[in-house]
């Protein structure tokens, strides 16, 4: 399968540019700048310099021996994006777009953030590249991720708490878009996932594809083959598409995207957009959405703020329709369990987002042969989540008593 997308800004029928007219020239300016620098050796050299020396690439591909033995099946490898500077894969994208913004002569950066990881990534890239960042964060998210709010402030960024709507990631994106419409001449909107109008889903994918490229190289070095299965968590879907994209042509490699099943899809309290959503238009793109029968976007739920989003990148929508990737869900309980298991067995505290992927990989591995390999992208580390997890465990203990 050779996928050469997007064509005219679309992944199949998904994607596009559903935006207010005022943003059209800004998005076109961005597209032409990106096209220009994408293949510019000087730009790529600078990006690669920062990725290596500042952010710490390549990240290791670690064989989780204890976890594999515990599960008893396939060999489980972890792609350690949690070791990237900033503590998550987000830095791959913020450095790329930060350098692009600089070349475009835009010094004011705005960004949205859910769990706060993209906000932190943006704040870091802005600090090191000499840009001024303002980050929009839903008030509810700011409350449950206080540590990251303080990190952003320490790094010199201004954090705007968003009080409108559901006060989570989608509202932060709405507010960032409104800011962009108002201040677009001087402002660069640094989107954190493979969402938004074209060219964002393509550009963010390109910056994140280094994850999958390294996995291919590293598995070849280790075993001279490709993994049998690749697993990543999907909120907006940037770490997943970055992991999947280089594998799309290798049809023998099975791709699994794990969405947040929350308290279970039947309860309605989840964020499993691809599994349970329908087609719609939000944040400039046509994609799968969680919406009611009238087209109103509904509130989502997940234990992890980073997966708590009612939309998903349009390229995932296409991969789902093509059946090239399989999208499944993992409930809060299972994600917490994987969080605890990985911490105890491997000494790695994962973020709650990739804990969903780890949980699903454990399920898959059990039914696979010991000679087979699974790679899980561990998209971030879990320091930010320890409070949420301890609260969760406390509540659970209370319920059981």
């Amino acid at each position, binding site marked *: 399968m050779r996928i050469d997308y997007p064509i005219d*800004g679309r992944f199949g029928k998904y994607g*596009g*540019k*559903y*935006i*207010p*007219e*005022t943003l*059209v*020239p*800004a998005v076109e300016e961005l597209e032409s700048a990106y096209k220009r620098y994408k293949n510019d050796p000087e730009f790529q050299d600078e990006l690669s310099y920062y990725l290596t020396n500042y952010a710490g690439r390549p990240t290791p591909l670690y064989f989780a021996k204890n976890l594999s033995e515990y599960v008893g099946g396939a060999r489980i490898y972890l792609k350690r994006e949690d070791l990237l500077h900033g503590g998550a894969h987000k830095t791959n994208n913020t450095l790329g777009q930060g350098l692009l913004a600089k070349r475009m002569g835009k010094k004011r950066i705005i960004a949205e953030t859910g769990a706060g990881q993209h906000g932190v990534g943006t704040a870091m890239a802005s600090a090191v590249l000499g840009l001024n960042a303002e980050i929009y964060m839903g008030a509810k998210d700011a409350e449950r991720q206080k540590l990251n709010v303080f990190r952003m402030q320490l790094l010199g960024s201004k954090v705007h708490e968003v009080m*409108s*709507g559901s006060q989570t990631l*989608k*509202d932060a994106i*709405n507010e960032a*878009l*409104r800011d962009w*419409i*108002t*201040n*677009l*001449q001087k402002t660069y909107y640094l989107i954190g996932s493979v969402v938004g109008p074209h060219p964002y889903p393509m550009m963010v994918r390109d910056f994140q594809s280094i994850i999958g490229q390294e996995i291919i190289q590293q598995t070849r070095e280790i075993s001279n083959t490709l993994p049998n299965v690749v697993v990543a968590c999907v909120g907006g879907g940037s770490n997943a598409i970055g992991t999947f994209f280089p594998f799309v042509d290798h049809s023998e490699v099975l791709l699994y995207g794990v969405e947040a099943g929350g308290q279970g899809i039947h309860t309605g309290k989840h964020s499993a957009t691809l599994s349970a959503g329908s*087609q*719609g*238009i*939000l*944040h*400039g793109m*046509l994609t799968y*959405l969680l*919406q009611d*029968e*009238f*087209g*109103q*976007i*509904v509130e989502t739920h997940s234990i992890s703020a980073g997966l708590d989003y009612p939309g998903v990148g349009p390229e995932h929508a296409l991969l789902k329709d093509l059946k090239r990737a399989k999208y499944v869900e993992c409930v809060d309980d299972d994600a917490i369990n994987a969080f605890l298991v990985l911490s105890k067995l491997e000494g790695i505290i994962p973020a709650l987002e990739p804990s969903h992927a780890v949980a699903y990989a454990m399920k898959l591995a059990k039914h696979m042969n010991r000679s087979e390999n699974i790679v899980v992208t561990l998209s971030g580390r879990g320091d930010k989540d320890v409070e949420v997890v301890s609260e969760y465990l406390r509540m659970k203990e209370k319920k059981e008593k």
Partner: protein
Amino acid sequence: MGSNRLRGKFDELSKKNEHALICYVVAGYPDVTTTEDIISSLVISGADIIEIGIPFSDPIADGSVIQEASHRALLCGITPDKCLRISQNIRSKFPDLPILIMTYSNILLKSGFRNFMTRSNLSGVDGFILPDLAIEESCCYIEQATKLGLATVFLASPNTPENRLKVIVNKCSGFVYVVSVYGITGMRKSFENYTVDAIKNIKHVAGSKIPVAVGFGISNASHIRFMVDAGADAVIIGSAIVEKIKSNPNKEKMLLELRSYIVSLKNACK
């Protein structure tokens, strides 16, 4: 036929040498019955064209006033079907009044453009304004609008380049909606010269083919004179009306205040 009703209104006004006053309301805010009473008051006091806003959960082109009103209306259970019923009731009261729906693309997409636009047509709607539908994504919408004789209104911005303006003008069958400023909806104290340039520029491209209406931030008679002097054929008042509704919990007083407000605005259009 929707686009005819609009054209008729603009012809009638231009014969009288008047400019059109277009008024926007958030359907279902504060409730459905009051919305209908508000629209009637607006029309009786001088509104030439009515925009019925169907609330959407994520209105990215709107400022805080319309966001909050939409949010409240949704919490009170407004649905697109109830909004169309408002249109139907207004249509039976005012057979010649041009009625437009302003909402976001997903509301139409969810029931299917064809389905939604057909039902709108049957409910007396004359056309649509969809602020998040760029012309590139509009082919299926335009096809249905043409079939049903509904008016299309696309937005143009101060930063829209001239070659793009030409395409936009050609795709509009109701009027061209000029966004006065870089920004979202909501009242402003004053406007800058770039707004004048934008109106002149768009007016130049539109020629006599199609009327040019200006919206975003307009709230008083001097704003209206400013836009009209720059060449606008129509002005659109939105947030200012919603704000008046919001700040006046007494319905009768609110309707009275709205009436005198609209009379003063309409006078500035003459």
